[in-house]
């Protein structure tokens, strides 16, 4: 099975390339990128082939691809891939607006190609344990959930993360969707109301919101909060983290998805080194299985669409200063 990376603007392309090379039965073909300087740098570092456009990579023959371009560029790439019958694993959030996200879902459905949203947290063993605990009622009935997905200012990885047009927003767009998806997965029902407050006190030099607190109401009456702030300083020992806690009528459990780590002090620096399961690898292995026909896709385009809707509703709420309906 042949695979490519469509766009190298997203920092995850740096790790996905190694995951694709490690995936059983997958041949990594190369990466497509229209920015030739970025492409040259990327292909040199990863000893990979480069293609100057999506069409050239498609013409080289790929069965599936991972879309890693800036968020607003996902749709045209997905349209090209779907038209050529190439299966799509798309970086999150799917798009910068609901229409584009819906269109991504629709074109893949119409073309009969698999579409999966890149939510690697669905493959986290600790979060899967949380899902199981809720399913089995081990904390009784869930009352509320709190989640934090904070990180560095990501412009160090790529400036477009703080570009309103390319990313669709800042911290809210970047960090709301993972937890919104985990909450939908755990609760098995849909968000129907969102309240959000945002600010720009951290890194005021960027033109988008850097702090955000989002409250999500679910159809079942359960409510949840998501702290999506870019509040980890530059010298924080890692990129950030994801923690989530569920409070139920019979107990409480907490998941720190990146707790499996070493604290390493060396060369005057402190860093956290993960030793837990590689969720990116598990996600890609799963998608390969889906393309091969072993099982359905676990995280669909619809899941990506719903999570994107929560982030977009957060912006509407922050502007109005009141909760909004999703």
């Amino acid at each position, binding site marked *: 099975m042949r695979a490519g990376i469509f766009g190298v603007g997203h920092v995850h392309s740096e790790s996905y390339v190694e995951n694709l090379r490690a995936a059983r039965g997958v041949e990594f073909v190369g990466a497509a990128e229209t920015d030739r300087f970025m492409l040259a740098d990327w292909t040199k570092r990863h000893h990979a082939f480069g293609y100057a456009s999506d069409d050239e990579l498609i013409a080289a023959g790929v069965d599936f691809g991972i879309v890693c371009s800036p968020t607003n560029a996902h749709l045209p790439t997905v349209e090209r891939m779907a038209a050529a019958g190439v299966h799509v694993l798309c970086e999150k959030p799917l798009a910068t607006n609901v229409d584009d996200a819906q269109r991504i879902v629709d074109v893949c459905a119409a073309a009969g190609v698999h579409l999966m949203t890149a939510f690697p947290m669905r493959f986290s063993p600790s979060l899967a344990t949380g899902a199981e605990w809720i399913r089995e009622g081990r904390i009784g*009935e869930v*009352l*509320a959930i*709190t989640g*934090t997905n*904070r990180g560095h200012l990501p412009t160090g990885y790529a400036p477009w993360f703080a570009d309103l047009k390319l990313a669709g927003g800042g911290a809210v767009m970047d960090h709301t969707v993972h937890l919104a998806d985990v909450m939908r997965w755990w609760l098995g029902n849909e968000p129907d109301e969102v*309240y959000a*407050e*945002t*600010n*720009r*006190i*951290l*890194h*005021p030099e960027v033109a988008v919101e*850097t*702090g*955000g*607190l989002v*409250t999500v*109401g679910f159809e079942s*009456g*359960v*409510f949840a*909060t998501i*702290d999506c*702030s870019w*509040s*980890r*300083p530059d010298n*924080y020992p890692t990129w950030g983290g994801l923690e989530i806690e569920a*409070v139920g*009528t*019979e*107990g*409480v459990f907490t998941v720190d998805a990146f707790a499996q780590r070493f604290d390493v002090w060396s060369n005057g620096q402190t860093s956290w080194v993960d030793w837990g399961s590689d969720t990116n690898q598990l996600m890609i292995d799963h998608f390969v299985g889906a393309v091969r026909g072993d099982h359905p896709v676990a995280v669909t385009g619809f899941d990506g669409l719903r999570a994107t809707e929560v982030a977009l509703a957060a912006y509407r709420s922050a502007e109005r*200063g*009141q*909760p909004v309906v999703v």
Partner: protein
Amino acid sequence: MTLRVGIVGAGNMAATHAAGWNEAGDRVTHILATGSTRAGSLAADLGAELSDSYEELLAAVDVVDICSPTDTHLGYVEVAAASGVSVVCEKPLGRTAKEAQEAVAICEAAGVLLLVAHVVRFFPEYSVARDRVVAGELGDVATVRLDRSTYFPVGDGSWFGDHERSGGVVLDLMIHDVDYARWVAGDVERVYARRAEPTGSGGHVLATLRHRGGALSHVQGSWAFPEGSFRTSLEIAGSEGLLTLHASEPFSALVPESDDVSAVPQPPTTLAESPYVTQMKHFSAVLHGLADPIVSATDAAAAVEVCEAILQSIDTCQAVTLGGAS
């Protein structure tokens, strides 16, 4: 000069405050607790007299320490002020913002001190964190996360469950962190909150506070955690840095579970001096004219006002904007 202290009430806080007054070198000489079964033994332990009336107590003391149920605070404050006796009052200052503001105005007009026991300001992790903020180490405060999660007070504390008397988990428990949030991030402009109230619990609340300076606080207050548990946490992120509380206690042990759960939850502390003692020593110093109050009476009233807005948000399912707080 040793102060003569009269305590109103003989419940959990009365006993805690009394121990603090002793450590401060002052003396609890009178207790008013008509109808309380615990008053006799508390008075005997302290070598204090049981007063037959409030007037009799006020005539015999330098300061009154009001540790009665919340809805009775204003009445006791009024009479003390009229008698020219300085007042220490357990938090919250009043059951409503109006009551709290009245208490402030009455004491100001009478020229008596009004010191409100927001004890969290005397817990070193909270005061040291605030010192770092004041020293400017974190830059401008952007996001604050505060959590106080425990079980529902049982037994003698049954009035806590009477919303009309106590204001429930928001006014009795969450107010600690609302006060702290104001202390580190300033006046509150807008609040949004959700509450779950499963049968038999005292409720679980998540609130978002937007401060006038733009900072956002996430406050969790819960009386729905499993019996015996008491958890607090604190994190402050600013434009120049991040402060996170190292959660582990300096002493930990693994022993078979005990059934010995205190009726009214109190946070675990492993410190040479209990923060409750630190608080009473501070109050004593203020009453002796040796220190300025760390908690101003207007701060105490403002915390009640924010909590009232949180309750209004819960009831109306809307964000609530606060009036011109001082």
